């Protein structure tokens, strides 16, 4: 917390970039600490016999054999993960965005109760959900299917997406929407034409979280699939580790490869968040 304070005391943003390079240095130091474990992962993915006992500080004799093995064995799973995560993002946004707006704007008694219910959903351990879903999905024929995992992944992310977007949408001035209503638009029109564009940043943030949640899901995939037909990358890695891992190089290589597509999307999304459009729109 002292650190926070020091930053605050440093004063208001000044607009001379030349004087800000020391902050970049500080940023790099923070980051170095945060990403060291990732360096370690990449480092060990490049070493032939890495493991707790034998990973060197630097990959002096790097080998790409881990990556070759990972791509050969896990390439398909990577595509599966992408399909599932992207579909989950779309489905989640389609369900959560209107709900977030509805809950932020219409103050009816049932709705405030529902907000509390949304919060409660976040308290339920995933394992409890996945167990119950197994029986349900078995009856519905959704085990081992893309649709099943997309539905389940979305379902898990929807409450959070609503809570997040609602917090932002609450700050949209009523007057903006009411102006549109006076012009004859119905609520849904007003929502699409005014609320969605203004909330672009919040929506992208929610999309990002949903993507990461679905991408990183492991428990649902483990419970709801049993064949290689639909196998996300997290499960691929888990199976790879299996009962007895002997070579961590390829496992870590898979982990590194698995984070690339998500990383690219993240950097793209970050630009939108940084644009500050939400703040700008309310002015």
């Amino acid at each position: 917390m002292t650190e926070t304070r020091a930053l605050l005391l440093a004063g208001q943003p000044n607009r001379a970039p030349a004087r800000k390079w020391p902050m970049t240095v500080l940023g790099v130091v923070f980051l170095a600490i945060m990403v060291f474990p990732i360096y370690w992962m990449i480092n060990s993915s490049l070493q032939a016999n890495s493991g707790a006992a034998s990973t060197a500080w630097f990959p002096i004799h790097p080998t790409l054999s881990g990556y070759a093995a990972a791509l050969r064995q896990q390439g398909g799973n990577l595509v599966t993960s992408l399909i599932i995560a992207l579909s989950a993002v779309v489905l989640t946004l389609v369900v959560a965005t209107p709900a977030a707006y509805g809950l932020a704007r219409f103050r009816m008694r049932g709705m405030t109760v529902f907000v509390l219910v949304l919060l409660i959903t976040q308290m339920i351990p995933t394992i409890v959900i996945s167990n119950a879903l197994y029986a349900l999905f078995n009856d519905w024929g959704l085990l081992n299917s893309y649709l099943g995992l997309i539905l389940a992944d979305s379902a898990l992310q929807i409450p959070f997406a609503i809570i997040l977007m609602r917090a932002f949408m609450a700050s949209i001035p009523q007057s903006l929407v009411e102006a549109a209503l006076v012009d004859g638009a119905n609520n849904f029109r007003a929502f699409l034409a005014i609320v969605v564009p203004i909330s672009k940043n919040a929506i992208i943030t929610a999309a990002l979280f949903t993507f990461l949640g679905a991408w990183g899901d492991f428990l649902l995939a483990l419970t709801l699939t049993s064949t290689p037909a639909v196998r996300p990358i997290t499960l691929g890695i888990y199976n790879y580790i299996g009962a007895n891992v002997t070579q961590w190089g390829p496992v870590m290589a898979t982990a590194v490869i698995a984070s690339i597509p998500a990383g690219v999307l993240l950097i793209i999304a970050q630009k939108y968040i940084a644009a500050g459009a939400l703040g700008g729109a309310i002015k």
Partner: protein
Amino acid sequence: MKKSRTIVAIAAASAISLSLAACSSGSSASAGGKQTLTVEDYYSSDPSMSGYNSIYTSCGAEVGAAINPVHIAGASLIQKVLQQASSKTLPDVLMLDNPDVQQIAATGALAPLTDFGVSAPAGDVPGVLKAGTYKGELYGLAPVINSIALYYNADMLKAAGVTPPTSWDELKAAALKLTDKSKGVYGFAMSNINTYEGTWQFLPFLWTNGGDEKDINTPEAAQALQLDVDLQNDGSMSKSSVNWSQQDVNNQFVAGKAAMMINGPWQLPVLNATKGLNFSSVPIPTRTTAQTVVSPLGGETFNVPNTGDKKKMGLAGKFVACLNKPATQLKIAEISGNVPSDQASAADWAKSHPQVQAFTDTVKTARARTGELGDKWPTAATAIYTAVQLALTGKADPQDALKQGQAQNK
């Protein structure tokens, strides 16, 4: 307005992609008029996965069935089996780790193998029959088995002028001599982790010395635990052993950071693949030379679940019998590094594979973990690793640790 139309378009497109996704996940078609047996195991990674697949195919051909193998990742197999039991979607043939057989048999989900005229091959070691039997009925048979022994780094022992230990005192002395703090080398390594793996590694010391899982609060058990604690307090065994799985232990050994370790034959492929590692193995040392080592029996059994389809279950029974024929046992031993259950085959196997000698000797007297307590074993196993952890972390002395452990052993 343009934006809103885009969103509607995306929504529509997603609905299409969802419905397409639903179609693409069809069920696997059955081959020709033949019955298809679904075989579920936890060999989820190669080389064992493809190795077992080929064995399944050949046994399938022998009994006249097509095979649909399903590989569930190790730790989640039991969970999956229970879910399948509740939704009546059990496979036709189910592989189980042997200490789980009685637990699952107790639910009624498994059919006795004798219903299909299958009995244990005459030459199998006694532990196999015991592990697969629940309330007098045989439910599972393991084609190959394993146990644990003491591996040692031959070069390190030679350099230190140490011979492989046979008694606890020799073990302690050798471990101390082999320890080289300056190089970060420990004389001895084993897994004392808070899972059933930790229990499994401690059992040879407990059982050989006359300890028993029914009551672990005994002087015999205390002696065994004292050995474990001594090895650590002498500095011969890393304090990290309370967090090490057997795989971590093997990694230490491979990296040259442990001169001796307790481990199983399934590590042989990795050990052999390590360049410059000159190793061998002996049975686990006993407290006195008069004692015979009693190790836990390891290995996976094949079982026939009660699916309700009598015809398929009969076929599955034949399939399990085929897997357990001595000839198949040898083939499975080849791909898994384990020991054939049939004693004569095991003896032949040891001749052609001298590295497994210590294990073929040990499994003869190996004891099934569920032999005494049956489906109550998990409670005892938890009590044992709890006591080991309490003692090694210094929260209690061995005697007190075992007393606390026993308090949970009900």
